């Protein structure tokens, strides 16, 4: 199959359509605009719906309504809009509704700016909304991976009846890369016996609900969710290892910062420095297993993020005090420069001296 050039944001849209998503509800925000622009044209071609909502609060609740009928549905936004969605996301998790939410992260806090950032890691992986719940969080690092992960995002959300978040940033959204999209595979949506579709032909009553007024029942519900999350943690951790064989130091980075770290790894290796990269693909569940596998053979870790140090907490939890875990970050829409990361690596190799 010939490769075609595609923008990251458009790849999210095409990936969703190919995964059988037929409903998109959203509210405009930079830097994800190419996605709604793409789907506004593309959805009608496949008999789907693109509907512009009056706010992100409305979008996520439209997603709630559509998801409850069993349809594959998504929304997309960036920082401030995702913040507005948090109550709805908590309801989706509580009612166990599958859907896909895209966050093309921008600089924050507040209005911040529209430049690329990774500062919504905590919000995505540690809750964000109220109550004990988890999102499955995916972090692609190329346009091809965006296409592939959109399919997985919808499949995982249906499999676990859980919202899935795909996180990127303006760099990934805007970059054009050749992708192999292959032929549209015929898709079959999984059976959803829990879906609300009306009691046609005497079907038993179905309810989409997150209210458990009796504390005993709400606790049982939380235990049930926790069991599901434990299963996801066990089965779905994903990561990529790049040149980790024989590495004395392993960088940990996702998405855009992982791309930069790859080039740093190459330069280090050329110079004989044994450095590798672990790139989490699932941010939740965090690929603890990947870290644990490496922890005894490496001397230190360096986490590189476009924030003030968020994922580094999960790296430290996984390393569990066995090795030093360093952090390097740029923030506020600034992107780490390979040369600076390289300097940081050298510094650690030289025992803290630049």
């Amino acid at each position, binding site marked *: 199959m010939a490769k075609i050039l595609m923008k990251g944001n458009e790849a999210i849209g095409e990936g969703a359509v190919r995964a059988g998503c037929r409903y998109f509800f959203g509210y405009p925000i930079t830097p994800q605009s190419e996605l709604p622009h793409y789907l506004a044209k593309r959805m009608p071609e496949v008999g789907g719906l693109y509907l512009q909502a009056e706010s992100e609060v409305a979008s996520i609740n439209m997603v709630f309504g*559509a998801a409850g009928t069993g349809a594959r549905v998504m929304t997309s936004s960036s920082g401030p809009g995702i913040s507005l969605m948090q109550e709805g996301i908590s309801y989706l998790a509580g009612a166990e509704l599958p859907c896909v939410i895209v966050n093309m992260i921008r600089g924050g806090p507040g209005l911040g700016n529209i430049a690329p950032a990774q500062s919504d890691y905590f919000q995505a992986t540690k809750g964000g909304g109220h109550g004990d719940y988890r999102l499955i969080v995916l972090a692609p690092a190329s346009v091809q991976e965006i296409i592939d992960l959109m399919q997985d995002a919808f499949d995982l959300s249906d499999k676990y009846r859980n919202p899935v978040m795909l996180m990127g940033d303006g760099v990934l959204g805007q970059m054009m890369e050749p992708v192999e999209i292959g032929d549209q595979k015929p898709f079959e949506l999984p059976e959803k016996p829990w879906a609300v579709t009306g*009691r046609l032909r005497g079907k038993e009553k179905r309810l989409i609900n997150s209210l458990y007024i009796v504390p005993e029942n709400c606790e049982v519900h939380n235990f049930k969710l926790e069991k599901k999350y434990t299963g996801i943690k066990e089965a779905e951790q994903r990561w990529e290892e790049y040149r980790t064989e024989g590495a004395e130091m392993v960088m940990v980075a996702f998405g855009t910062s992982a791309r930069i770290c790859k080039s740093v790894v190459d330069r280090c290796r050329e110079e004989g420095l044994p450095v590798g990269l672990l790139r989490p693909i699932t941010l939740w569940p965090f690929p603890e297993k990947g870290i644990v596998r490496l922890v005894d053979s490496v001397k230190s870790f360096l986490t590189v993020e476009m924030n003030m140090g968020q994922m580094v907490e999960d790296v430290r939890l996984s390393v569990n005090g066995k090795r030093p875990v360093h952090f390097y970050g740029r923030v506020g829409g600034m992107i780490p420069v390979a040369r600076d990361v390289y300097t940081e690596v050298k510094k650690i190799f030289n025992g803290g001296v630049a």
Partner: protein
Amino acid sequence: MKKVFERPKSLKDMPFHYCPGCTHGIAHRLVAEVIDELQVFEKAIAVAPVGCSVFCYEYFDCDAYQASHGRAPAVATGIKRVLPDRVVFTYQGDGDLAAIGTGEIVHSAARGENFTVIFINNAIYAMTGGQMAPTTLLGQKTTTTPFGRDHKLNGSPVRMSEMLSVLDGTAYAARVSLHNPANVTRAKKAIKKAFEVQIAGLGFSIVEVLSSCPTNWGLPPLKALKWLEDNMLPYYPLGEFKKPAEVI
């Protein structure tokens, strides 16, 4: 003997949690009777709000959702856009619809979303302990307006049906009241029309139902109905503010 009055099929046979004399129960019965009469029980999907009527998802025997506070119209939009041939309705209080959910109700109406809204105006936030609602009357004492609602501090009560009726997407908007049997009969007619408008695919329909809350008004049930008649009716005129030519 022939039964002349029975529980509508669309309403479950179970104890409701409403206080004695609360008109939420009457409103439920009217909606259920209409669903029965229009024979749309199998297609009906209810969207419950956050408020005293949160458990209506249990009481209506059709499929149902429980929505977050104020967002029932957005949830109904999502449902109806996927399943356009189902009969979808929201059941919302005045705090839910006229305060926190103002954006959702206005824009659902503006888009002409083809579902029906049953809007219970009891001039109070009942579930949370009788605080001022956007519909609370001037001078009305609530737990957060202990000296009576003051225009200077809180503005004036909102007339939602009139507001929504000026939007092109609204096909049917009416205000009814449950303070006596004659008005209950009229209320049912309006609710039926609203559902008929939806079934005919004509657009957004809303019926505002003036309701009593004896508990938070601090009145016995009968006095509460009298208070509604004496105080709410003058400010909230009954009638149809918009109706399509097709359904007269």
